[in-house]
């Protein structure tokens, strides 16, 4: 796919010779495709960077994206697609910035009208295709790493273990419980039990939108593991629809205590601990 040295030289000469005209036309095409979401000056700077990188690579010999001397070109393309991906542009809007070069080249080659014009144009356009594919690849890579980062952040922020009372900890679960999250929750809860020496844990599932057999399985595993370590778990925050689903699916919680609300669960644990809560005479303003 790569250009040979001769073609590269001609491309560099063509682009280098009409620098002002090329960048102007290129910027105009890109600007119209993005409909004013990036300033003209910024686009022009990006296009100039690309233009310089392509001309630079062409002057050094055959343009081959995987070669050593194309590092600058690769960096320019990666930077462009990374920027676009972070700013929330679509894949089409990103790659069109590269494919716009084809239109520019078509104009130039038509103007020169030499014998090899067609042959050159086909070769140039193959190179542009390659550049476009490379841009698309790095665009996707940036987006994937963004998604991975977000998933990790979500995992970190959504599983706190809080202490409710002396010897009682609670895990308020929020969001869908998949295997990875269930594992994190389980480990964190068990570790907290050991660290604080709490014999009671309350798992509150008010924030879990749906309980299917898999989610129930994860919760049951956590409870059994806690029991093996010598702590007791209570499940609370079961909403009416969830209760119906649990029964419909035939999930058995066995002898695990389940309560409708976190307050009920706490009261239950306190009673087991022998703590009595009494209401004092309320204050009256006379």
């Amino acid at each position, binding site marked *: 796919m790569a250009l040979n040295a001769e073609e590269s030289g001609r491309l560099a000469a063509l682009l280098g010779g009409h620098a002002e005209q090329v960048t102007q036309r290129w910027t105009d095409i890109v600007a119209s495709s993005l409909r004013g979401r990036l300033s003209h000056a910024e686009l022009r700077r990006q296009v100039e960077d690309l233009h310089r990188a392509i001309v630079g690579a062409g002057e050094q010999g055959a343009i081959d994206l995987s070669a050593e001397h194309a590092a600058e070109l690769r960096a320019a393309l990666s930077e462009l697609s990374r920027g676009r991906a972070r700013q929330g542009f679509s894949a089409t809007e990103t790659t069109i910035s590269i494919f716009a070069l084809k239109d520019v080249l078509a104009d130039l080659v038509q103007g020169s009208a030499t014998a090899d014009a067609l042959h050159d144009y086909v070769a140039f356009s193959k190179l542009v295709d390659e550049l476009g594919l490379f841009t698309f690849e790095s665009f996707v890579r940036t987006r994937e790493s963004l998604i991975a980062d977000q998933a990790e952040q979500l995992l970190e922020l959504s599983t706190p273990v809080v202490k409710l009372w002396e010897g009682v900890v609670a895990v308020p679960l929020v969001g869908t419980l998949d295997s990875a999250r269930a594992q994190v929750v389980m480990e964190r809860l068990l570790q907290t039990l*050991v660290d604080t*020496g709490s*014999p009671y844990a309350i798992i509150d599932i008010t924030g879990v939108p749906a309980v299917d057999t898999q989610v129930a399985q994860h919760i049951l*595993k956590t409870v059994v593991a806690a029991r093996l370590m*010598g702590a007791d778990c209570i499940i609370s925050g079961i909403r009416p629809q969830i209760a119906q689903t649990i029964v419909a699916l035939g999930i058995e919680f066995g002898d695990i205590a389940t309560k409708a609300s976190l307050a009920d669960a706490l009261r239950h644990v306190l009673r087991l601990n022998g703590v009595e809560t009494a209401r004092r005479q309320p204050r009256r303003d006379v």
Partner: protein
Amino acid sequence: MERVPILKIGDILLVSIQLDMSDQTAVQLQEDLAERIVATGCHGVIIDITALDIVDSFVGRMLSTIASISKVLDAETVVVGMRPAVAITLVELGLSLNGIRTALNVERGMELIAAARADELDHQLDDDPDAETATP
């Protein structure tokens, strides 16, 4: 051959397992423990497995056997200090330590044994009508 030490604290025997168990050490521990329970008349056994990284079916069975032996000799067994990773592995493997009571640490284990002992004594008093009528 290595032996697992058995410490007596008040009415309780404390066994802290610090080494990888082999068939021989397990059998030796069972024999030693049975003898010590009879000799001291203790009513509680605490087995501390804080130092164990791996609890497999072999160790699980050994714990069950010790609990059964102690039960016959009227001593309550509590396994304490199981690590989270060990508990997760046991659950994933589907192993359960049937008939074994567990506690988070030695302190909780002692409380558990004391509570179980108190319950038992209460029941004995309740079951025996003469005990109450005899003392006016």
